[in-house]
């Protein structure tokens, strides 16, 4: 990853805050957006980025967070529809070159693909890892 990017993270839950902390520590400029002020407590004490309290489905909030300057927007809210909307708006209205969305519901992945939005589905990822782990254990048992 290039150094000193300007990254906007939408959603300050467990995933969002974790990403924000790591990215900020790596020296990138980070802005975190969350509707709920309490969510910012998830950020570490060393977090050196910005916080914007507001609903990311409002264009004005994205403007406030300077999404137009972002190199990357990551949508990590718990609502797939919000993540889908924010990443699309970031691209269409603010010409952000790279957007990433978390999507929980695996059946939604085709539509994300259709719309050209890169997505990460924790459910599918976890399922894959579980299956891999099972396969590994089984082959261990087989050879035992």
């Amino acid at each position, binding site marked *: 990853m290039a150094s000193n990017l300007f990254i906007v993270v939408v959603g300050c839950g467990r995933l969002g805050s974790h990403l924000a902390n790591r990215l900020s520590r790596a020296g990138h400029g980070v802005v975190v957006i969350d509707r709920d002020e309490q969510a910012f407590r998830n950020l570490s004490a060393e977090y050196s980025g910005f916080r914007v309290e507001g609903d990311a489905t409002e264009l004005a909030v994205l403007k406030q967070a*300077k999404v137009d300057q972002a190199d990357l927007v990551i949508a990590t809210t718990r609502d797939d529809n919000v993540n889908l909307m924010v990443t699309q708006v970031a691209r269409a209205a603010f010409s952000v070159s790279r957007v990433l969305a978390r999507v929980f519901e695996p059946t939604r992945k085709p539509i994300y693909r259709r719309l050209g939005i890169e997505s990460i589905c924790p459910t599918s990822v976890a399922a894959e890892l579980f299956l891999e782990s099972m396969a590994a254990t089984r082959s261990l048992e087989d050879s035992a």
Partner: protein
Amino acid sequence: MEASCGKEPVLIVDDEKNIRLTLTQALEAMELDTDTAVNGEEALAKLADKPFGLILLDLRMPGMDGMEVLRRVRQTRPDIKVIIITAYGSIESAVEAMKLGAVDFIQKPFAPKEIRGLVTKVLNRDTLQAAKAKGYGTHIELAKKCIQQQQFEAAQEHTRQAIAADATRPEAFNLLGVLLEMSGNKLEAQKNYRAALALDPTYKPADENLSRTTGLTAGGGISLGR
């Protein structure tokens, strides 16, 4: 004159650690000599010690607030350049800051690129004084510089000269509106914002100033335009 520009030491004054860190990191890339202060008192102490050329100052700080710092700084260092750091929607106080000579504002959050661009522009502003005053763009920059140095009469003069140079562009009218607003003449100010918009309905700073003064939007700052 040229040589001294762009390399003057910069003082960052903000109570929030992340802002001090972000700004220091951003300006590091410009090879500027930076120092930080966590509050007004520390800022004034450091200013007495070192010939800083530029302060990045947050208006909202506990204890001595940014406005008070600015007032005191102006007494001992009227020439020092100031960039005000504001929070979103906080800027009725911008008018007051402008009366103390601050014309440049940056709103949180900001990208590193943004603050670097603004600092470069502000640090280079002195070279304009050496240049002969001609051309619309120059007059606009000079007008802003005069506002910085609280020479409001001269600022108005430059705005008018800009209009004389080119009456079809919105920037000068917007600036004139701002000067009028600062002298307490809101109605006249609005006329100028409207004039700016009539010339260019897409000129956002005038639109923002007009919305702000007609009370349609909550918050929002004084827009001077780029």
